[in-house]
């Protein structure tokens, strides 16, 4: 078979398997694509870069952070070698690395690379997709600064990014909603609660205007705003939003527990726990956990998150021993991937103490 065909087949196979949650198969196919491309073009050819990006993404799905790092560093080196250190083409590569380090909880490394990416995006002519790329880059840098506790700087960056999105008529509503959520987090970190609430209300309004009444995007916006009201002891405002979100989430989950349903299962379980429906949440998570383990492997951060949610439900039912056991397993898994300052590790430890 001509290597060009073999390369296309390998890439298409990877793209096909990923949305089905068959990450290991997708990874094997993408690794094969890389070998073919490397033999065809050589190890430093720019054609390898999109393949390396996809490989790194698949590594991230499987929480193979060191492997993802390796692939993204290789991609960055190829781009810098071929186009130089200050070419805009390296900006995406820098951002990908920053995003990886952010997920991995290596905040300082994330900050280093994302600063470079933002610098390049700011210098680029602001035409075409450049403003959107800059907005996204500022958003990610803002999130990183929040994790580093540089809250004022985070707010400034996220505001700037949100401003670019607000003025851009071509963006998707969900992008603006995500930006508003981020802005709300930044205001929260600085104790500016009225501004936080305002952002979440805007996000909810956008969701109502652009999504159907039973859309999960609307439920997410309701859930966030309800959470804010609850934090401000305004449970009267929170309750109807929680109930509406719960109803929408229930409509998203049936008896299928495959890969595509897992995010909805998580959202529903959380909503059930908020509503005090501990048994329903526990049963749902227990039914979904084997599927989660099959897709990701038994030692994966997603499994740790499921166990954390399950433990909350078990606690709600007074099953303290089972909850403790699940939390200990979750902590062991989370610690095998993350540092102790990672939000997931912190949250699990907090649950273990109560």
């Amino acid at each position: 078979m001509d290597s060009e065909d073999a390369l296309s087949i390998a890439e298409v196979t990877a793209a096909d398997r990923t949305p089905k949650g068959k990450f290991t198969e997708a990874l094997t196919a993408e690794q094969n694509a890389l070998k073919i491309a490397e033999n065809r073009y050589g190890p430093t050819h720019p054609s390898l870069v999109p393949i390396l990006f996809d490989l790194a993404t698949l590594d991230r799905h499987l929480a193979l952070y060191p492997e993802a790092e390796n692939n993204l560093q290789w991609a960055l080196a190829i781009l810098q070698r071929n186009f130089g250190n200050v070419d805009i083409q390296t900006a995406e590569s820098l951002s990908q690395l920053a995003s990886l380090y952010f997920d991995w909880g290596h905040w300082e490394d994330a900050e280093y690379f994302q600063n470079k990416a933002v610098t390049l995006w700011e210098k680029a002519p602001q035409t075409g997709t450049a403003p959107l790329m800059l907005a996204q880059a500022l958003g990610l840098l803002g999130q990183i600064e929040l994790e580093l506790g540089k809250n004022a700087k985070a707010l400034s960056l996220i505001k700037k990014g949100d401003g670019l999105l607000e003025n851009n008529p071509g963006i998707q509503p969900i992008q603006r909603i995500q930006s508003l959520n981020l802005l709300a987090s930044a205001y929260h970190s600085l104790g500016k609660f009225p501004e936080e609430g305002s952002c979440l209300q805007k996000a909810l309004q956008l969701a109502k205007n652009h999504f159907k009444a039973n859309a999960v995007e609307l439920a997410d916006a309701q859930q966030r705003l309800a959470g804010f009201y609850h934090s401000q002891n305004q449970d009267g405002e929170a309750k109807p939003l929680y109930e509406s979100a719960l109803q929408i989430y229930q409509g998203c989950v049936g008896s299928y527990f495959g890969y595509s349903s897992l995010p909805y299962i998580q959202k529903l379980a959380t909503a059930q726990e908020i509503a005090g429906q501990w048994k329903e949440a526990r049963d749902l998570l227990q039914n979904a956990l084997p599927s989660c383990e099959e897709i990701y492997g038994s030692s994966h951060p997603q499994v740790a998150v499921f166990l954390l949610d399950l433990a909350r439900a078990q606690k709600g039912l007074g099953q303290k021993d089972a909850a403790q056991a699940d939390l200990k397993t979750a902590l062991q898994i989370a610690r095998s991937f993350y540092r102790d300052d990672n939000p997931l590790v912190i949250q699990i430890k907090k649950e273990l103490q109560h």
Partner: protein
Amino acid sequence: MLSSPRTEFSKLIGVLMKAFKWLAPLFFIGSLAHADFGCHFILNSRLAFSLDSGTKKISFRFTNRQDMSLIGLSFYCEKSKLPPEYKICLTEDEKGLPSATPLESSSVTPKGGCWITVPINNLPLQAGRVYHIVLEQDQTRGGQHPVGIIDARHFASIAYGDTLNAFDPRDEKPDPKLNVLLFEDGKWRVLDKQPLFALHGSGSKFQGIPYDSLGELPIHGNGTPGEPSDDVLGGEVLHPHSGLIPNGFALRLRKEGHPTAPLKYRVYTINFLQHKITLAFSGLAALPSQVQVGYQWVTVGIKKEDQPQEFPAECRFVTFQTDSGHPSDQAPGCGDCYLISEVGNSGGLAEAADLSFDGGAHVSREAFSNDGGATWLDAFERDANVVILGNLSAPPEPQRPAPIPTPAPWFEGTTP
């Protein structure tokens, strides 16, 4: 930040760049470009280690590149004098040294001055693993007591190259583990020299270093400066794997005697169906004063007025010509001329052409002409040290699927 094979590849290019001679401002010199294609393998002399004692061993260390079932091993025996039987073993690597336990072995009484190939019994080798080919006297030949005489009058010597080129010649992919080790006085030592060996796997799989022979490609005017039709030209047919926009060449060059005319480069295209060779573009390469008597890597810039053309992913003859010089019966075969270093396989090794630069016949290989470039002769197992320097041309946009979306965060740090 790169994993070590890729870092070593970049380092190799960096070292070669430092070895390049800076030419006078006669030429446009672009900064050394982001891509190069050509044979960088250097062999100045072939050395040998005499296994003239039962306590001596030699090992060739390498990284195996592909899964294969090994069915044969080859090495070059430099000299043999009433030799005993030798054992050739394939072992795994233990902290850089051969393991004491062979995976598989074979025995041979080698003949000197040629490649020796021994059969191996279908040994599976794994891609990415480091192995050793170890040669030593087979002292017992399967028995219980030592047999065979080994001393200064009964021995064989095993060849290796003087310059370590730590890469696979086919695609110059770095192999930082490649090396020669000698066992003497009870211990191994690493020589930092070039192993010469070949692995033969079932299903036409192979790997190795076939370059046991060094040579010089003479470039001269055949003693008739005004008559170009009998000029002796030489160079390399290069077949880049993707488009290259050339801005120069690098070649390992020296002069013999006192050439008076400059060295010029010529790039030819070939239409095989019509048997037609066409000069694509040419230009000045070097002045006599700019070429040394000893070999050095020289960078030649391509000027705009040379009207360079892009190198597609096809064969192009990158050759060199001069009006100067004459043939000679004595080495190096010409006087008052230029010479390009070249390497090759002397023969007797199966698949040697496939193991050489760019692999296989009819792709990159050495070429020369005795009639001013009208006709050309190829040497599939030989490669001249000629490199195209340039920038990669934009590859044709492949129809690839959309990028795989990055995963959403598994945990957002919020509690109900």
